[in-house]
């Protein structure tokens, strides 16, 4: 297989679903792994509001269970991005991507502020409607080529996937990875707990890079 990712370094088969590590996907995998480890060991930051024109400041109260839940979601999000980086099957990739989406919803939804929860809800709606192009694209790939395995699709003699189906897959991943649009709002970063919110942006970036590789390969 000569694609954008290079030759597979090694292959981990799980039945029909084959995980493969090319230099490209291995790099992304290690990136996600390192960040997940960072999330596990780091302590969440405390936010301090300083009142202008006076000496008063107040630390925001964050309950322990809140932080535990968000850390759990961030770790799950890291694991999901690791899986999405190395999977060699289109439908499995779609499932991992929607797992990233729902984890991002979870990271944001645990915050008590109503404004943040509204953002989480709107993002959840986008993530849910993004499963439509994602799963539809995967099913049409299976129908037109007769296989779902990326390694088979990358072979020189294989039937090529139609361009619009690639566009469907990309649009689906864009919907699932839309979290940074919401996180870019200042309100989102007012939500306490910095390392976990960064996980949203990182996982979206990773699944974007990966879907570009998939679309150029098949």
């Amino acid at each position, binding site marked *: 297989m000569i694609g954008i990712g290079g030759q597979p370094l090694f292959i981990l088969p799980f*039945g029909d679903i084959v995980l493969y590590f090319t230099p490209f996907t291995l790099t992304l995998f290690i990136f996600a792994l390192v960040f997940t480890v960072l999330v596990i060991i780091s302590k969440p930051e405390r936010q301090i509001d300083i009142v202008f024109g006076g000496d008063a400041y107040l630390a925001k109260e964050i309950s322990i269970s809140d932080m535990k839940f968000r850390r759990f979601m961030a770790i799950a999000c890291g694991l999901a991005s690791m899986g999405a980086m190395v999977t060699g099957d289109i439908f499995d990739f779609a499932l991992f991507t929607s797992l990233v989406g729902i984890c991002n919803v979870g990271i944001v939804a645990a915050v008590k502020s109503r404004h943040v929860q509204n953002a989480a809800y709107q993002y959840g*709606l986008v993530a*849910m409607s993004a499963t439509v192009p994602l*799963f*539809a694209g995967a099913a049409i790939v*299976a129908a037109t080529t007769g296989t779902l395995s990326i390694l088979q699709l990358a072979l020189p003699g294989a039937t090529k996937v139609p361009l619009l189906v690639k566009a469907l897959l990309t649009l689906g991943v864009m919907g699932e990875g839309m979290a940074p649009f919401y996180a870019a709002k200042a309100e989102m970063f007012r939500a306490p707990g910095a390392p976990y919110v960064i996980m949203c942006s990182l996982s979206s970036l990773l699944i974007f890079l990966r879907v570009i590789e998939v679309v150029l390969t098949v």
Partner: protein
Amino acid sequence: MWNEYSVGLALVMISAVIGFLALLREQDDLHRLLIIDLVEIPSLAIIALLGTDLAEALILPGLVVGIAELLALSQIYVTKEGLRKRPVRGLHIEVVEHAHAPVIIPALLVGYGIVLSGFTGGAVAALGAIFFVMSRGSTDSYELVEMASGIAWAAWIASFFVFMFFPQYWYAGVMGAAVGILVKVAAKMTLVGSMWGEAE
């Protein structure tokens, strides 16, 4: 080249377009959730058009993903709108009011679900359990249900590894996976019933 597949794909895609156009114009948040539930149907139909056994194996995950996200989003909606404290009345269906029906219907559904086992059995059994819980009011065995679901998940993962690394013991794998998935899906879905009354 207009074979059956292309004709089906065209009509289903047109209905997806109609659904997305409605989503584009909608402003109310709960209406949006309802319309997204609508556009999931064309996506499942596109998978169904594949027509092989693989199609069926792809529909089941697609279905479960849809209902899982729906439950999470509906709870976020309730929390964000501040509707948590509002009471939910029971189902005022006359059949439910009488004493015997709530026992017989769930018993039938749960029994048939256990016979089916696997994904399908989990969904059918959960339907029975929810019907029972809702007609009886809320339960307090919430933690117990969650624990059962966790243990079932572990059993299912164990059988996955049996299939992958010790395929000669496939028989144990089938049994473990079928029971694990049944209990897991049924337990998770039963939580829908437990949430019904918003126990105080």
